[in-house]
């Protein structure tokens, strides 16, 4: 007999928070980039780069903090590739994002074979080599911080302006390219932190494709949350809850797991089609900005 208390109880809150953490970090990252007008499909790839680098460096040095630092640097580097391609060379942002996601299916496996002798994973860390809670606090601090930065600082105003109307921003003396570079780099830091959380916070090693589509779910949460930090947080918590429930229901309830896993994806499509309110993506999203010669 199914006991509802087995599924819905106090520890469900804890697992929801833990499962939502990488989504929150990554979707806040995506928020900076997309609010500035650069589509960031590469969240998945950046998360993988952070997860692998974090776990690899933590395993080599024994220090999770060095691992986290290295993960953030890796995220910056990958985001820089995305930024240069999209901003300097005006490449298609979705295509570049997809390329980065493919790249980081390959890179971790390639390097783990060479340096750890196993194709796809890093060595198991000791328990004390993990940082289980630190990044959860960070994630929940990043949301109000992002809200404040976005709506109450000059930087935030400029960021939104660059994403809504780069021409107007340019006329007002804002350096559009610089703002977009900064936004994409912040996005890289946060997405890499999300990846590091998976590898050295929640788990204790990197495994092949360990993000399992979380970068895309973070993107879905961003759309679901209408590119607004607080609403995006709620979306992440909801998707985290869905995952937590689906894990608990395995073997307890006779609903195939696949259906619960599909929930975020179906909801996103419904929201995008405008069945629940309207979505307002940043107006200049996806468009490279070509400065007019004066």
């Amino acid at each position, binding site marked *: 007999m199914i006991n509802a208390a087995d599924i819905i109880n106090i520890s469900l809150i804890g697992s929801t928070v833990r499962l939502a953490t990488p989504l929150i970090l990554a979707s806040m990252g995506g928020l900076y980039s997309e609010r500035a007008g650069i589509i960031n499909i590469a969240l998945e790839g950046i998360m993988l780069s952070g997860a692998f680098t974090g776990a690899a460096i933590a395993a080599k040095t024994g220090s999770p903090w060095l691992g986290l630092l290295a993960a953030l640097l890796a995220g910056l580097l990958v985001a820089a590739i995305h930024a240069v391609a999209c901003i300097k060379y005006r490449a298609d942002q979705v295509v570049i994002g997809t390329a980065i996601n493919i790249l980081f299916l390959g890179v971790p496996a390639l390097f783990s074979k060479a*340096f750890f002798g196993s194709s796809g994973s890093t060595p198991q860390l000791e328990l004390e080599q993990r940082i289980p809670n630190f990044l959860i606090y960070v994630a929940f601090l990043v949301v109000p911080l992002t809200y404040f930065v976005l709506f109450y600082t000059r930087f935030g105003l400029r960021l939104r302006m660059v994403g809504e109307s780069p021409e107007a921003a340019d006329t007002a003396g804002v350096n559009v390219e610089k703002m977009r570079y900064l936004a994409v780099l912040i996005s890289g830091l946060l997405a890499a932190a999300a990846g590091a959380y998976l590898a050295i916070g929640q788990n204790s090693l990197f495994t092949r494709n360990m993000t399992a589509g979380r970068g895309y779910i973070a993107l879905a949460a961003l759309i679901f949350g209408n590119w607004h930090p607080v609403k995006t947080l709620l979306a992440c918590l909801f998707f985290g809850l869905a995952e937590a429930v689906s894990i608990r229901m395995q073997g307890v309830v006779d609903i195939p797991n696949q259906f619960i896993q599909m929930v975020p994806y179906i909801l996103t499509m419904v929201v995008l089609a405008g069945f629940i309110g309207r979505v307002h993506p940043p107006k200049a999203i996806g468009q490279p900005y070509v400065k007019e010669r004066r």
Partner: protein
Amino acid sequence: MQRIVDALLFPLLAVISAFIVGAIIVLLVGDNPIRVYEIFFASAFGTVDGISYTLFYATPLICTGLAVAIAFRCGLLNIGAEGQLYVAAFAAAWVGFTLDTSKWIVIPLCMIAAMIAGGIWGGIPGLLKARFGSHEVINTIMMNFIAVGITSYLTQYHYRIAGDPILQTKPIFEQAHIPRMSAMLAPFGIAFPAWLPLNLGFLIAIVACIVVYIFLWKTKWGYELRAVGANPSAAEYGGINVSRSIVIAMCLSGALAGLVGINEVLGYRYRYYDGFSANYGFTGIAVALLGRNHPLGIFLAAILFGALVRGGLFINIFSDRVSKDLVVVLQAVIILFVACEAIFLFLQKRNTGGKS
């Protein structure tokens, strides 16, 4: 002539640059790039076996490359070929293990089922785009995950042989098998090893290239589709039904991705195997970009990527430092370079500067 040079120059530069990046990575992980590339080319093109495996691996990529390209020509980015080929392959398998009739009936039905299933899966994001303006990129990504979920559910709960530890359906009837190259060449007295998986699916992919070429450049619908891709507002002003073109492009795109199911299910595995696709849908983006969204270019690009798959398997065996994932990296770097064509523009500037 100049046109051909221009069309070939950037893709070639992109491939060469990617191989240079690959060589640097090989050095970084501690192997000899010349040795690795030697293994790579010898295994992909050195023998009849090698070439036919290369063509076999190229087959799904021709299909997904065409799928991405036809959407691209209409100004749409179909990142959902992966999901489309999964539902299509499942549909082909379902017809194949359900209908126990003559091969002249069941094989065409399997193929039609694959194309319809893929077409519907591609058509839904097209319809959502045309009707609600929701972005096809996000919707195709979401539908990839939904396709994986549904096919894996159907396989696991309904069509698996009881007790089978592998997540795969029961086999299709023998009448639904399409002939392999050995069987097709035998009547002509050509001996071809029977174990090679190259099959009728490859010829179907070639026919698809020709059909797509004729459709895009010789028919009214194809013309309208390209007009929408070139400039949607001008097309609309010129009396073209933009919404209809978008839906048609996405349906055709999905149907082309669905052809992968024919090669995979009817010609190779003879059953639906959960998660069979080695990123064919995403590699299709690379193939289409490198092939400049032209069927001939796509055919050539797919063969290069097929060779990468084949070569990767051998690198995996013969190098203890480099794994077959080098191939995935090369694919990604090729996309990066092709998408950032502007990197190479300085070469062209210098050229035209010299001429004028």
